[in-house]
């Protein structure tokens, strides 16, 4: 075996040259990552990684239709390239007609930086952050608090070439910071998170100060029973609920009658009013600070993705506008099946309801209610209603007469985000947030806080 030396675009070109299939898509992903993890005011694990994954998608025409074969390999060397291409062709010949088969995308202008070297990250991304984190540890230790958390940065440069002439590239930096503070006896816990592209805009000391205030709030403990409570959901919690809703919004499943977006009697609920508030749920690859790929990158086909759509331009789309459901997730194939417009999955998600008030202002305007920090272990209970269950975590606070008066026990909730859209009475201003539950998979989100008059806290959790 030899060294991985070729430039990514050269590998893409060479794989396309080697191909004997009727159609070919080649995706080269150049990944680099750096991470720090800590517990109890001390670093625990850390690492830097660098890798390349090459995905070859071969399409083969036949009398019954067009088949596709997908094969991916990491760290492909020059002498492994041809076997990889042949493996994809063999997989296509073995697979039988693909039901999502479409002509490969063509006519998209090439990316100007297609032949440039990949972008990358390294431990240097933490050059200023790491010492600041050490200072935050020292401050926490002096204040009788323990800090836990994780900082992660990745850069993926994706090079996509097709036998129909596409030559596209996208660089995707992603960063997350999660900071959890606990009292020495571990009975009080607070959390804050942030999404970032480069760690230049996050300050662990500032986040830690905010957590110290929340731990101080929790010095007064109030036990409350299960029940329905007026609840202020912070942006992270709203994002987690609506991201899951978005993942459940495949048009084909709805059209087949098996999701919450299916219409009784057939068809989908597109066009139906889901909220009385003027809520708009949207994705936009050009959203400042939340930039994502402006074209489809599909390493495999699924319920809402198709390898045949690789390179298809992704634009801004309103999934819900002024409370009315506008779009469901479609590929070109499922758009044809359902009669809905083509709407590929977006790389970010934003909710805006025109609210101007901060979370603190919503608290100040609350007579009695619960203020949550975040949600955790969210799982689907019933797809018919999109009922989700999960836990409150790292701080449930009692608000009385506009002020936080103490910390409440945690709860297990059972709620449907679709139902919440119909019951929400107020949203705050939209801000960038880190969806705590789904941040391993989805980090680019901007959501408002939300006031729900009757959030269903199904049972009490003793967990802290």
């Amino acid at each position, binding site marked *: 075996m030899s060294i991985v030396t070729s430039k990514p675009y050269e590998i893409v070109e060479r794989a396309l040259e080697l191909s004997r299939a009727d159609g070919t898509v080649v995706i080269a992903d150049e990944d680099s990552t750096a991470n720090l993890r800590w517990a109890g005011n001390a670093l625990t694990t850390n*690492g830097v990684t660098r890798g390349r994954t090459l995905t070859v998608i071969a399409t083969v025409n036949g009398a019954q239709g067009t088949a596709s074969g997908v094969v991916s390999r990491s760290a492909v060397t020059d002498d492994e390239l041809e076997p990889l291409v042949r493996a994809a062709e063999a997989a296509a010949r073995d697979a039988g007609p*693909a039901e999502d088969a479409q002509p490969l995308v063509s006519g998209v202008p090439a990316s100007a930086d297609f032949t440039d070297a990949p972008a990358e990250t390294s431990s240097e991304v933490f050059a200023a952050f790491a010492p600041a984190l050490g200072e935050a540890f020292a401050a926490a230790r002096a204040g009788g608090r323990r800090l836990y958390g994780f900082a992660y940065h990745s850069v993926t440069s994706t090079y996509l070439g097709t036998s129909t002439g596409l030559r596209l590239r996208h660089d995707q930096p992603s960063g997350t910071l999660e900071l959890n503070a606990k009292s020495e006896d571990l009975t009080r816990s607070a959390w804050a998170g942030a999404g970032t592209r480069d760690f230049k805009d996050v300050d662990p000391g500032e986040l830690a100060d905010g957590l110290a205030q929340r731990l101080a709030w929790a010095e007064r403990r109030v036990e409350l029973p299960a029940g329905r409570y007026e609840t202020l959901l912070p942006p992270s919690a709203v994002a987690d609920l609506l991201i899951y809703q978005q993942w459940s919004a495949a048009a084909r499943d709805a059209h087949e009658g098996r999701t919450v977006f299916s219409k009784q009697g057939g068809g989908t609920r597109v066009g139906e009013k889901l909220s009385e508030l003027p809520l708009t749920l949207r994705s936009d690859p050009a959203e400042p600070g939340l930039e994502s790929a402006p074209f489809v990158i599909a390493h495999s086909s699924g319920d809402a993705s198709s390898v045949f759509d690789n390179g298809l331009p992704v634009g801004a789309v309103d999934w819900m506008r002024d409370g009315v459901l506008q779009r469901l997730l479609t590929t070109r194939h499922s758009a044809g099946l359902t009669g809905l417009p083509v709407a590929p999955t977006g790389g970010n998600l934003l909710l805006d309801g025109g609210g101007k008030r901060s979370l603190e202002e919503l608290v100040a305007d609350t007579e009695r209610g619960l203020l949550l920090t975040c949600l955790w272990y969210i799982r689907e209970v019933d797809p018919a209603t999109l009922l989700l269950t999960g836990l409150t975590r790292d701080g449930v606070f009692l608000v009385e007469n506009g002020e936080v008066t103490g910390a409440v026990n945690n709860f297990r909730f059972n709620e449907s985000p679709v139902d919440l859209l119909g019951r929400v009475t107020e949203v705050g201003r939209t801000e960038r947030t880190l969806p705590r539950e789904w941040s391993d998979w989805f980090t680019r989100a901007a959501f408002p806080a939300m006031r729900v008059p009757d959030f269903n806290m199904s049972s009490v959790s003793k967990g802290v």
Partner: protein
Amino acid sequence: MIHFGKAGDVSVDVSRGREGEASVPHEIDQSFLALPLRALADAALARARALGAEHADFRFERVRDASVRLRDGKPSGSSDSTDAGYAVRVVHGGAWGFASGVDLTMDAAARVAGQAVAMAKLSAKVIAAAGSDERVELAPEPVHADRVWVSAYDIDPFGVPDAEKTGLLAEWSGRLLAAKGVSHVDASVMTVHENKFYADTAGTTTTQQRVRVHPQLTAVAVDESSGEFDSMRTLAPPVGRGWEYLTGTGWDWDTELAEIPALLAEKMRAPSVEAGAYDLVVDPSNLWLTIHESIGHATELDRALGYEAAYAGTSFATFDQLGKLKYGSELMNVTGDRTAEHGLATIGYDDEGVAGQSWDLVKDGTLVGYQLDRRIAKLTGFERSNGCAYADSPSHVPVQRMANVSLAAAPDGPSTDELIGGVERGIYVVGDRSWSIDMQRYNFQFTGQRFFRIENGRLAGQLRDVAYQATTTDFWGSMEAVGGPQTYVLGGAFNCGKAQPGQVAAVSHGCPSALFRSVNILNTTQEAGR
């Protein structure tokens, strides 16, 4: 964080297998052995030593995983991915350092070792800035030189043509689609072939190969006029077997596929459950997941000590409770093992060079053990790790991951029918579906594939909209009877998540059917406010 499992007749003896003993008929793939494994390891470990590392280990991994998906019998997506590369982990200056690479030259391997040492130095600076004196030390492990281990399987699924895989799933889908009331069928099979080479500065070198498969089919019924729909999935668990699992070894697919349409039709007509307290007979196809969440994760000592506090959470089973905590009824005996034949967490040696073992976690209802890696074992005074270190890829650091955690059957225990016969008003729970538990492993909620009403010791039709909710120690304390070996099934999942960066591990959980008294049942439609 997880998926699946069946009632029935697949019995497994979890005591089988001895430390480090090589199993089975297959040999390590020649294409893996042809890689310059030892030369890369030597270069990396030598550089780490030269840079002053107290400990260094080198791990080369090649993991191939593939999936085939069909929707209503037609191919709807496939993938075939291979992740290959190596990692160097060091203890330097009392701190961890980790780095990974892919270039197969000695210079590159040495460079990666240098990066790992650099990361350890960065960590040491942060630790010093925080005023901490904590140092990483590892529990000792005997040297295992030149050991080879291969998991128990007959047919490598990657030797089976894709057309045969697609054809079998299409034929099974066709059987379900032909049945009255089945509107749609989703079918898939996931297959994994994993090779690992490990070497460390103490002299251990191991080469291993594991194979696992996970087939599943889901039938969906849709009543377009009412807008109602529901589904029923096969109960066949993922297993550490080869393609033979789909052709008659270890599971009776013909019988299960024949039963599903009628069960789904009955479920669509079933009445909604009345919320309240019920006695439950929980089938192994459901109970494995409750074990996973409420025992498996709760007895991870890194979690109990707080190392997962910001992410996966901690545990109510804190270290000071070892030997004292009343976890459940006296019928509760739970083991951790990395030795069960066909277990998904079964290995010869873990990713720190520790030989696979079997040990007690809960004995007669009391917490008596934890799952350990070498660092946590040393930190807490154990003489030796029980071999729970695992990394899911060459680019991830090994962390303490779950062993096969299993509930023992009662040697002369009752059959599932006999357990049901002892219930006046209750529910028989079969198959897993939805799951969630809190960050300290107290409060959980589970649903299932099907729920049967029990009236006066007999099954009296299915119920819908059922979820059971409990606190861990209350639930296991309410376990009044444990089924016999004839009810024991090894369930499990491919997709247990833990750590940051997130890692995924496959794990098995064996258990018998069991009877629990007075468990809180929710009506999920009412929970949704309908």
